[in-house]
């Protein structure tokens, strides 16, 4: 995970450097703000990884790791099938069509989406 942390940190400080130069040269606000957020967002992830990944020893990062070392450990459930992603997307597309064609469609879409989210959560628990 150290490589990932470094990658996000590199992105953050690259943006900080470019953003500073850009602001000093141009005093243009839209681009400067965008570059500022491109500094903050990867920085946030880099900090999170730094705090968490220090405790993390992954066999995949072990240069001598063998495929068998991963055996038998539960990595959680991979759902073989679920209808809810389809229903969620159906609701989302109704909702955005509602934004164009009328509130009633948006309401219907929102309801379908809410139902699908409940379905997803139930499925995760059950």
């Amino acid at each position, binding site marked *: 995970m150290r490589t990932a942390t470094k990658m996000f940190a590199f992105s953050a400080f690259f943006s900080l450097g470019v953003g500073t130069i850009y602001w000093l040269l141009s005093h243009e606000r839209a681009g400067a703000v965008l570059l500022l957020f491109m500094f903050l967002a990867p920085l946030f992830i880099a900090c999170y990884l730094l705090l968490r990944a220090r405790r993390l020893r992954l*066999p995949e990062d072990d240069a001598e790791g063998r495929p068998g070392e991963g055996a038998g450990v539960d990595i959680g459930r991979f759902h*073989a099938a679920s209808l809810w992603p389809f229903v969620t997307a159906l609701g*989302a597309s109704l909702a955005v069509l509602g934004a164009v064609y009328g509130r009633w469609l948006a309401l219907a879409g929102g309801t379908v989406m809410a139902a699908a989210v409940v379905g997803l959560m139930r499925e*995760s628990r059950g």
Partner: protein
Amino acid sequence: MDRGTGGRVVSVTLERPPPTPPPLRARSGGILEWITTTDHKKIGLLYIGTTFLFFLAGGLMALLMRIELAEPGLQVLTKNAYNQLFTIHGTTMVFLFIAPMGLGLANYFVPLQIGAPDMAFPRLNALSYWLFLAGGATILLSFFASGGASAAGWTAYYPLSGPQGSPGPGVDLWIMGVLLASASSVMTAVNLMVTAFLLRAPGMTMWRLPLFVWNMIITSLMILVSFPPITAGLSLLFIDRHLGGHFFDPASGGSVVLYQHLFWWFGHPEVYIMILPFFGIVTDIIPVFSRKPVFGYLGFVFASLAIAGLSMSVWAHHMFTTGAVLNPFFSMMSFLIAVPTGIKFFNWIGTMWGGQIRFDTPMLWCLGFMLNFLLGGITGVMVASPPIDFAVHDTYFVVAHFHYVLAGGSLFGIFAGLYYWFPKMTGFRLSERTGKAVFVLVFVGFNLSFFGMHLLGLRGMQRRIADYPADVGWTWLNQIATLGTVIMGIGVVLFAWNVLEAFRGRRPAGDDPWEGYTLEWSTTSPPPEHNFTWLPPIRSERPLFDWRQRDKDMGAEEVRK
């Protein structure tokens, strides 16, 4: 994996993948199986199939436009229909074909290449696909809305896309379709990153990842920082159109240039989101067909990272002629991108140098990719220079430039990937002879279509026009371009036949038809559910090559005894 919320999800994914996963209940076949699937391979196939259909639609639009342009005067289209066609053609190719095709191939092959049983969040993955399909359908079906589809160009500049410029629902549907597709891309980006960081097989360190995986990590990073601003920009546009906003309306204190900033902040990185995956594919294919390890692995990864960083700071080179941006800064940064891109050419040439090159179809597409992309890159450096850009801005020179990058580059990379991985995805072998014919047709057709456009642009032909005067000498170049598009179209039809014939012929491909280097070739074709029953030890970026070498060495020892 998908259990619980917040930190819990992550802590679960931090554990190891079992080589033999627990058996899961499978649903009966048929359409329900595809609608409910969370298998990354099925979702990958859905992506690849859907994006290819969108490609056919976008290609048909291009063909219609080229037929219109073959002669001066208006023959088959009205000006308004032409405007709708180039808008939706661009939108389709960018948002619905090239970028999602990269994500679709990644969906199928990133887990396989790193030795993982699936993507990190399978249901999120399915949701991404369905949102993408919904977005694509919204954009394409908007042709049937009253007033037709958006005619404001794929960039949807204000005020053309504003309430006065485009009163009908076309632009609204376009906005909503793009929002759905970009939400889908962001989800896939998160999914790919978590998968590549946390589900690698033991021994698959970050510096042994196949370069396709590395480039997908970097592409995902770019998606994450470039899509939110366009989502914001299009939402503001919608607010301006319908909810009385004035963000972009100068008459009420808004700023038109702000829209361009938000759009190109996304729009330029999107170019790299559309090319980096195919850089990765090409860099996986060239070593296999040159029988050599890749030349300069680390250099390639750092070049990709440098391209990602630089490409986030050049957006306003699309706005040189507005006079509202700092041209020297953006010009300088754009020139710099040529350096890491040049490094990649060294990687490819260095890999082929002294290798035993096999000219199978995937390799041919890679070579075509390099030639076309080289030209697109050179004209890219040219238009990065403001004096040249002022002369050729909004002419066919720019059209030629970006088609050399996106069609000559990305499309050829897509074909390379499809020909390379088709045997793995289906278990069947494509006809090599037909494949080579497809390559020749598309390569010749493409260059006929677009090379002359450089000259048209230099002679002053503007982009986005449905008609041109007969006495300016543009006609013969346009006719060659139309002829080229027809040839390319024949090539694409032949490709479809190539695929259908392979399904009908059912020639078994075997698990490893190309003697590949990466893990996807160590499993069956097509791979079983959860991908692997066995993995070789991973000691380099070519685990399968090492394994075969070990077999050969052991065989040689037997002989000596």
